[in-house]
């Protein structure tokens, strides 16, 4: 483990669902941000979109691809919700937009903001917000244009309805607290030209988020060893957030802030030597604590999950899984995951749950305490809208 001190301290702040919904439901007249930087953006890289977010005692949310079709547009990404205190999940995909381009979500207190990635001829990303699994979706005027990047943390919500988004063209857009419009903040190429960007050799943006105090965070891939591409956007510019990197190129593949703590997942190395580690800062990015690295191998990551308690999990190919409980913990190899598992979630009491879709059916498996193995606790049949986008 290591700890790093930075010069900045960012005050913690509460992330409010109401604010996010207020943004989405804002009056007509809000417009999408236009990309005014032709020639200065680059496509964001792609990471597995399946993921889950939850915390003990909190609702759970999970994004899962379903359909099993060989045609991309016949596979629909579904959102499942688990009410706080309940072990069972229910289908909660927002209505009104085809989800065959992928879904991205951002926790917003007990609620959620969801963005639809563009697909087929749809090039921008509609948004929807919900206050809790029991509430109804709200769609207002906010949207992300160009569409959201194909990374699980392309969207994040912050205090008082602030929102930040990473687009497929490498542009970062921000809706400041109290505003209803996502406007262009910067781009990957602009960021790469800053002192902080040059210092890390930034080549791509991979995640966006907020620090506990509401400072926008931009994360990416650094080619210079020893640097991790996490930047805080302060006073109109990017500064390195002090996250330590590994030897060789390092990518931030996950970013989560909850309960005053920011968690980042870092991937480094290549081929069989590729590893992932988790890093936490509970001090407004001033100090970071890192976990040991777990060997994953390149190209084996099927999904990554980050929970509000600081825990995280990885689903790897070959029905393998790794989990870490939080700061001070170490990666634990999980018993062989049930077939088709695409994401790992937390049950109401913090038990691990595996969500495994097969065609139009989702199986929920739960890991018994003490390595008792996985047992299926629920099966959900989904009416996949085959043919609706053809």
């Amino acid at each position, binding site marked *: 483990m290591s700890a790093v001190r930075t010069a900045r301290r960012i005050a913690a702040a509460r992330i409010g669902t109401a604010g996010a919904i207020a943004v989405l439901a804002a009056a007509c007249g809000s417009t999408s941000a236009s990309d005014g930087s032709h020639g200065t953006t680059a496509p964001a890289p792609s990471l597995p979109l399946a993921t889950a977010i939850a915390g003990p005692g909190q609702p759970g949310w999970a994004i899962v691809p379903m359909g099993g079709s060989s045609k991309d*547009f016949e596979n629909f990404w579904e959102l499942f919700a688990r009410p706080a205190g309940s072990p069972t999940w229910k*289908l909660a995909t927002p209505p*009104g937009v085809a989800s065959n381009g992928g879904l991205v979500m951002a926790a917003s207190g007990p609620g959620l903001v969801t963005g639809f990635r563009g697909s087929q*001829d*749809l090039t921008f990303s*509609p948004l929807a917000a919900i206050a809790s699994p029991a509430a109804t979706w709200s769609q207002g*005027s906010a949207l992300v*244009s160009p569409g959201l990047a194909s990374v699980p943390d392309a969207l994040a919500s912050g205090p008082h309805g602030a929102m930040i988004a990473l687009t497929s063209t490498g542009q970062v857009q921000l809706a400041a607290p109290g505003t209803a419009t996502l406007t262009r903040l910067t781009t990957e190429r602009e960021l790469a030209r800053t002192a902080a960007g040059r210092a890390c050799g930034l080549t791509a943006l991979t995640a966006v988020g907020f620090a506990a105090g509401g400072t926008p965070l931009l994360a990416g891939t650094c080619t210079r060893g020893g640097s991790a591409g996490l930047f805080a956007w302060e006073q109109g510019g990017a500064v390195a957030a002090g996250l330590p990197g590994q030897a060789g190129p390092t990518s931030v593949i996950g970013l989560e802030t909850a309960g005053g703590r920011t968690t980042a997942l870092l991937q480094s190395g290549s081929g069989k030597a590729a590893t992932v580690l988790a890093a936490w800062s509970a001090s407004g990015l001033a100090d970071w604590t890192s976990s040991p690295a777990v060997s994953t191998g390149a190209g084996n990551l099927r999904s990554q999950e980050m929970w509000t308690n600081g825990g995280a999990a990885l689903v790897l190919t070959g029905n393998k899984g790794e989990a870490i409980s939080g700061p001070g913990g170490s990666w634990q190899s999980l018993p062989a995951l049930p077939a088709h598992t695409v994401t790992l979630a937390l049950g109401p009491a913090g038990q691990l749950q595996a969500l495994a879709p097969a065609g139009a059916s989702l199986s929920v498996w739960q890991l018994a305490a003490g390595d008792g193995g996985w047992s299926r606790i629920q099966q959900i049949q989904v009416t996949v809208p085959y043919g609706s*986008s053809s």
Partner: protein
Amino acid sequence: MPGMNSGLSNTNPVLVAAFRSALLHQGLLAAALLAVLSIAWVSVREWMPSASRAGAGGQPTAEPAAVRLLRIGFGVVWIFDGLLQAQPAMAAGLPSSVIAPTAAASPHWVQTVVNWAGTSWSYHPIEAGAAAVWIQIGIGAWLIAAPAGRWARLAGLVSAGWGLVVWIFGEAFGGIFAPGLSILFGAPGAALFYCVAGALIALPERAWTTPTLGRRILAGTGLFLVGMAVLQAWPGRGFWQGSTHGTAGSLASMVGSMAGVSQPRWLAGWLTAFQSFDAGHGFSVNLVIVIVLAALGAALLSGQPRFIRPALAVGAVFGLAVWILVQDLGFLGGLGTDPNSVIPLGLVCAGGYLAMQRLPAPATVPAALAEPAAVPAEPEAAPEAASPAQRRPARLAGAFGRASLRAVVAGWAAVIVLIGAGPMLAAQASSTADPIIAQAIDGNAAPLDFAAAPFTLTDQNGATVSLASLHGKVILMTFLDPVCTSDCPIIAQEFRAADRLLGNQAARVELVAIVANPVYRSVAYTRAFDAQEQLSGLPNWLFLTGSLPALQKVWGSYAIAAQILPAGGMIAHSDIAYVIDGNGHTRTELDFDPGPGTASTESSFAVELSDAARRVLGSG
């Protein structure tokens, strides 16, 4: 390949019926033309002095046997190809089922060239399909009927020219730029042999008076066969292996795919048996093929009749085997367009042999009689007192009467070629697709005449727009979901294209879309859709929205269903377009499901929409 097809079923009943109708009409026209020509020819000959009509038309030029073989042989093949082009599925299916698969393995530049032609065809499938039929039947009849001399040579040139068009655009250069090239599979393309034969027929008679041309034809063919033998023997191309680890080699794989197409059972049985044999003895089979090709090539290159004769006999047997067991007769299954390369290659070889062995006898007919069309009118046919202008029709009539029956039929066949080529060229000059494609997808427009339901909604700029506020304008109206992923963007582009087609008349037309999504219906979303579809700058484009009750009222008035689908599906809504006249009367309803959204269907719907608008503009 983009734009390569209309996206419609090859057997779409509307297109098939239209194709048949076009063929029938053009066929009747061709028959009527033949009847008129025949009557005129007989009549003119009756009026002419018997001596002049016997002396002129009845003396044919001595034609080399090789030319006669090539002319009649390829004439028959062209007619056969023309009849294959008349298959009902050909109009809609040729680009997607014949051209695109042929070009799929070729380099990008080949695909670009071929795609241009395929797109042109798919824009006008009826005209193009019928044209191909009549051009090929016309060329075939022309070749068969043409008397020796100018008529035959001209037919040869036309045959070579059209063969080149077919070879480039229909056969993607015979696949010579694609991997897997093999004479067994038809390389270098049947149509290339049509070109060669046409060029040979077009040569002047003096070229055939010595054995040199025949030797060159055979030597060229021999060189080609040796090259094909080397290619066949080249390692790593999959021909030496019958089957490896359960994977069929190149030949067994091709034969297997041919055996799977629709054909007589006995033939499929032969192919399957040969496939099994090749799978088990791939090396031996290829060794025999390589040896036969090399030996044939060497024999033809030798120029020695004692080698060439047995080589031609062996070649005939080998070619027949390849034609049946590998090429599956060339035209069975799917949309066959020709009997493949073995028959035309055999004709060229036979022509070369005849040219070497059977030289034409020295001409005994006066040169002036060799080409009837060039014979000057007999002086007594024209009245002495007539002016030159008056004499011209008489001279023409005299020449026509003296023409042989074959020349008359050849002339008719040439006109048939023009009957086919004319509409095709006219269609190519048009940058828009035939509206029949849209009708094939959604049926015909329904004429209506009733007062359109009023509405008051908000446009993409926040301004209030009502039906009354658009009084005096023809309204093209549809219902779109701003977050739709498939149909709505296509329909929007069809409206945009219709606006372009209207030209100056667009100033009197308003393009109106009304939101068809009960969830995502804010102005921000209509604006985002406009930006996505590049409609923001279109001055007569309105994307209207409003409160859910206001929208639901409009949907109800215009019979639009907007249903929320579960689990990640987009909104299901009706794809309909209305044409409303300047007095607020609904005049036309168009089913506007855009179908596959290919370039040709988009263009076709735009034409249908702009035509409907013009009709209302014209009637107003």
